């Protein structure tokens, strides 16, 4: 059995090379078909994302493609000279290929550690290969395990927990304060890239209303149109603050636009309802003392959000070692299982061939000694002989199949050796 993973990723190749080698939805089935016709009897899966392009191949035959074969294929398929990208290619063999795919699925090889998209991309790649019938028993086992390991790593290490961008952390903070958002009002004060990004994330929570205010009414109108919100004159800022549950402030003002005393009055008018203020302006728009006003008011500035994103990043980093340990164990178990399955398959074939041969030989001898047997009698005798053999082999076959199917089987090799000795089979 040979397993090979060959490709480029964000570490080994610049974007221009990755783009040149990418397989889009149209090219991928075509490439799989070409690979199968070039290397019949082998299995193929192509994983192509913006950060990686990898070809996975597995086979048991002598004509399994090598790294050079796949390099030539990539060059020919994309009409690129191999010298242009050959130096960026990275390959993994056998157990290494399994471990690499597991790390990819677990997002350890991703640009953003713990990102969730890659698991879906691995699933899509496998699904595409199944549709083209280019994924067989080996890659089926490897990819199914990769998807499981990807989920396990996330569940046990929390690697996908906590957001990493300043704008998206705002969503985590909002979820810690509010239960539902369909009855909430978001107020955006000012305009800016950061405000846009934050609002983009907050909009995914589907708030009831988005209010936008700006010193320039025209810019407020433009932003309101863009975000499906309502423009509010800047003179009505304090009324808007009373209505708002979540405030995103991002003006270019050099002094705070809302003082402690002003917001204390706003909060009284709000009957001390829960409020989240995301002051992402520099210098700050809200007096920092507002944070001490009440437990019902949570004030976050850009540094708070950045620090939280950084802590999330550290938290994810902490999960790397436990994740690698899980992957190491899973890789060994998966590779062992593949070996056991291959040996078991070969042994079952040997067993059938040997007993078919024995039965045929004995039947030939019997029929030669008794030429008086009619064809019907010969057929009946042959049928009985084969049934007896099948019944005798039923239990050994079942035991072998169960050892091959069960990854946690205690002693698959003892069983294989025992069957080999008992039935006088050759080593596979």
């Amino acid at each position, binding site marked *: 059995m040979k397993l090979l993973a060959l490709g480029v990723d964000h570490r080994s190749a610049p974007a221009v090379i990755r783009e040149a080698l990418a397989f889009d939805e149209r090219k991928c089935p075509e490439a799989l078909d070409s690979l199968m016709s070039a290397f019949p009897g082998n299995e193929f899966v192509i994983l192509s994302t913006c950060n990686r392009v990898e070809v996975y191949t597995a086979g048991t035959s002598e004509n399994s493609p090598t790294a050079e074969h796949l390099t030539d294929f990539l060059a020919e398929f994309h009409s690129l000279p191999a010298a242009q990208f050959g130096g960026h290619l990275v390959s993994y063999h056998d157990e290494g290929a399994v471990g690499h795919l597991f790390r990819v699925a677990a997002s350890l090889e991703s640009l953003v550690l713990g990102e969730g998209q890659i698991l879906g991309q691995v699933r899509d790649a496998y699904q595409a290969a199944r549709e083209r019938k280019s994924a067989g028993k080996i890659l089926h086992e490897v990819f199914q395990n990769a998807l499981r390991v990807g989920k396990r790593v996330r569940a046990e290490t929390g690697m996908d927990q906590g957001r990493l961008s300043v704008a998206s952390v705002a969503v985590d903070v909002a979820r810690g304060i509010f239960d539902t958002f369909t009855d909430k009002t978001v107020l955006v004060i000012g305009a800016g890239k950061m405000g846009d990004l934050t609002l983009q994330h907050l909009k995914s929570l589907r708030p009831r209303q988005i209010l936008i205010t700006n010193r320039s009414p025209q810019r407020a109108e433009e932003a309101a149109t863009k975000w499906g919100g309502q423009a509010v004159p800047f003179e009505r800022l304090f009324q808007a603050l009373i209505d708002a549950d979540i405030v995103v402030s991002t003006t270019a003002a050099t002094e705070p636009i809302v003082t402690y005393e002003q917001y204390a009055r706003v909060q009284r008018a709000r009957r001390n309802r*829960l409020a989240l203020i995301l002051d992402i302006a520099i210098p700050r728009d809200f007096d920092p003392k507002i944070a001490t006003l009440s437990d019902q008011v949570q004030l976050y500035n850009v540094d708070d959000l950045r620090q939280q994103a950084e802590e999330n990043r550290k938290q994810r980093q902490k999960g790397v070692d436990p994740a690698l340990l899980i992957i190491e164990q899973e890789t060994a178990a998966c590779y062992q299982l593949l070996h056991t399955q291959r040996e078991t398959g070969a042994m079952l074939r040997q067993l059938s061939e040997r007993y078919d041969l024995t039965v045929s030989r004995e039947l030939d001898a019997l029929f030669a000694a008794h030429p008086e047997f009619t064809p019907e009698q010969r057929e009946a005798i042959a049928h009985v002989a084969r049934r007896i053999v099948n019944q005798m082999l039923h239990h050994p076959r079942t035991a072998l199949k169960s050892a091959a199917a069960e990854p946690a089987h205690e002693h698959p090799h003892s069983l294989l050796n025992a069957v080999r000795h008992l039935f006088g089979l050759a080593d596979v």
Partner: protein
Amino acid sequence: MERLTLLCFGGTYALALVSELARFAVRSAARWYATVGLTALGWIVQTVYLANLARVHHKLPITTAFESLVMLSWIFAAIALYLMVRAAKPVAVGVFVLPLVLAPIVFAALLPASRRAEWGGETAFWGTVHGIFLLLGAVSSFVAVAAGFMYLAQSNRLKHKRPSRFGVALPSLEQSERVNREAITIAFPLLTFGLLIGVLLSLAVHPGAGAVPLSWSDPKILSTFVMWGVFAALLHFRYRPAYRGRSVMVLTIVAFTFLVFAWVGVEVLRLPTAHGVSRTVRRAS
């Protein structure tokens, strides 16, 4: 014997709590199943115990402080189980509710199990109603205080700008606040009616023939009225916007502490009380 049985389900809940606390160190789905499984096991054992008490005495097991505490813990455990199963696995509900399940069992273990109110005749019915109202009021207060603790923990995390720890998520402030508000609103009338029935029962006691009427200066009565006063204040503050949030949550915890004291404090401190002992009712002639 009672203490041995208490140890059976109390110990199981304690193990469930240990398993729940292990969420700070162990990241495994098996831990969640262990916590829920142990809580469920403890609850089943406790159910059998309470059913047996009811069968033996032919009464709801709420006629002694001991029994009502065990019953209270049983209801808490049912709520805890519901919340743990209902909430997402990373939400650390058990950390807050399991100690509240264990606490009544610990108090029950300190009390004599045998001292029983011998309600008879008309008092049997009203005595049971008195117990049920107080029990439900306590359950509602339990929910309010659990929500209060969760609010304070979440608020503290947000004020200190800490990201939520993996596997230790908390309900949002809004959710905790809503649950707390609703639970207090339900608890107050239940406690009020329960106490009112208790007062009327006490007034109906015939002072002769060995019966022990309750005095207004009885420590149990005094602590109960103080508790009611704190709950009344809590309900008042609950609807004052200025006190929303931390103040109300802290007051909820204070009120619950008074409730616990009124329930078991007198017995645990062995203060002289006539509550819960044999009383007979003056029959209408």
